[in-house]
């Protein structure tokens, strides 16, 4: 089996302590939570940090709770908790959809939402989920906290707005009436990365779409937020034709690369199909029509 190169290790006992360590150790230090993105890369020697700061003891960062008009998720919340949370399934069923197809059940016991979002792999599902839900990321550093919309969180492939000496601590999801959301994914086999995936969120009031979120995984250098589809949907009444049109926009707006999972035309096609299907389910859930 492949093994990592040498590094130093310390365990953080508080968020402040983790931030202090990041400052102290510089850019060759990495935070490790679940480690199921970082450790495989280190074993393949594609990532060779000098220091690892283990934040798994920071239980204060693991929670799913409502606070005012937001549902807030701590960055250290494990995938398995996101899957099981009835509160989350009630408010944002897109999470449960996605978690059922993220990695495999064993990996989900360790991986965290913070790790997933910060890995910034375009094929990663939670990034699309959070983008569609208009989430905000709370980033803490020595200077304090700042809140960044998901649309500004992703800068490039594997690159986020979290700077040196900073840490993602929380994800905030605005709660508004009439919400319905869903995630659709195609994979070659259970546990595989997405060939393409789509998250859709709708807020429907008086039979009309008040707001919409559409985001795609695995069809661009980062998560693709399909703003043009969201614009199309706002103010309209939900219908299959509308969702098919939104799907066409997804197909046009994404920028997939060909690889072993599929060629460009198939991925574009999937972006469209999965957008349409996710919107359909989101609408049914918003209107309480889904069994």
């Amino acid at each position, binding site marked *: *089996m492949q093994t990592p190169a*040498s590094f130093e290790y310390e365990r953080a006992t508080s968020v402040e302590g983790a931030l202090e360590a990041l400052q102290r150790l510089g850019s060759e230090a990495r935070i490790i939570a679940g*480690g199921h993105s970082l450790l495989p890369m280190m074993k393949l020697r594609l990532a060779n940090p000098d220091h690892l700061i283990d934040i798994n003891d920071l239980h204060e960062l693991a929670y799913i709770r409502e606070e005012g008009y937001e549902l807030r998720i701590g960055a250290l919340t494990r995938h398995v908790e996101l899957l099981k949370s009835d509160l989350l399934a009630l408010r944002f069923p897109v999470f449960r959809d996605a978690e059922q197809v993220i990695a495999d*059940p064993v990996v989900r016991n360790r991986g965290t939402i913070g790790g997933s979002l910060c890995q910034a792999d375009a094929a990663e599902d939670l990034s699309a989920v959070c983008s569609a839900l208009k989430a905000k990321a709370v980033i803490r550093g020595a200077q304090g906290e700042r809140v960044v919309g998901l649309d500004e969180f992703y800068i490039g492939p594997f690159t986020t707005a979290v700077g040196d000496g900073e840490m993602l601590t929380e994800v905030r999801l605005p709660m508004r009436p009439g919400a319905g959301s869903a995630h659709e994914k195609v994979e070659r086999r259970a546990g595989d990365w997405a060939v393409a995936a789509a998250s859709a969120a709708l807020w429907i009031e008086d039979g009309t779409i008040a707001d919409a979120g559409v985001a795609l995984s695995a069809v661009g250098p980062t998560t693709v937020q399909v703003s043009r589809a969201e614009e199309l949907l706002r103010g309209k009444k939900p219908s299959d034709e509308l969702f098919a049109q939104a799907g066409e926009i997804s197909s046009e707006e994404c920028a997939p690369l060909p690889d072993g999972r599929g060629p460009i035309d198939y991925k574009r096609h999937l972006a469209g199909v999965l957008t349409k299907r996710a919107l359909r389910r989101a609408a049914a859930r918003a209107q309480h029509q889904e069994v």
Partner: protein
Amino acid sequence: MQVTISINGEAVSRDVEPRQLLIHFIRDSPGLTGTHWGCDTSNCGACVVLMDGQPIKSCTTLAVMCEGHEIRTVESLEVNGQLDPVQQGFHETHALQCGFCTPGMLMTSRALLDENPNPTEREIRTAISGAICRCTGYKNIVAAVQWAAEHETTTRQEV
């Protein structure tokens, strides 16, 4: 660095490099070679052990990360000569051939039944979808877990 991990109820202390993976820490302990490895990319599940009762991939965990946690390996299933129902189930239904994936499958199954004593076929297949078997085609493994679920109350030893 010095690390102490509770493995099968016993404190195991050793001086290890931070980079030592949990799987190697376990396998370097006398009598604990039952946990296997089969890949480099956390896909195959041969290395699954329980950490605080939950299945984890010991090839994707550092030993140093496990101090303060309870690790259980396949060797912990048999207690005072009494086999765990999942072990009995695997034997009854011919759920193993080469035996290499078996420890990971057993630990995954044990954790599943601890949380969900009456899983459906779909739930069983999902629970073991993080572990690969090349020999059995999974049909008999599903039957083994169902057997264990049925026989749990009659054969489980009181702790």
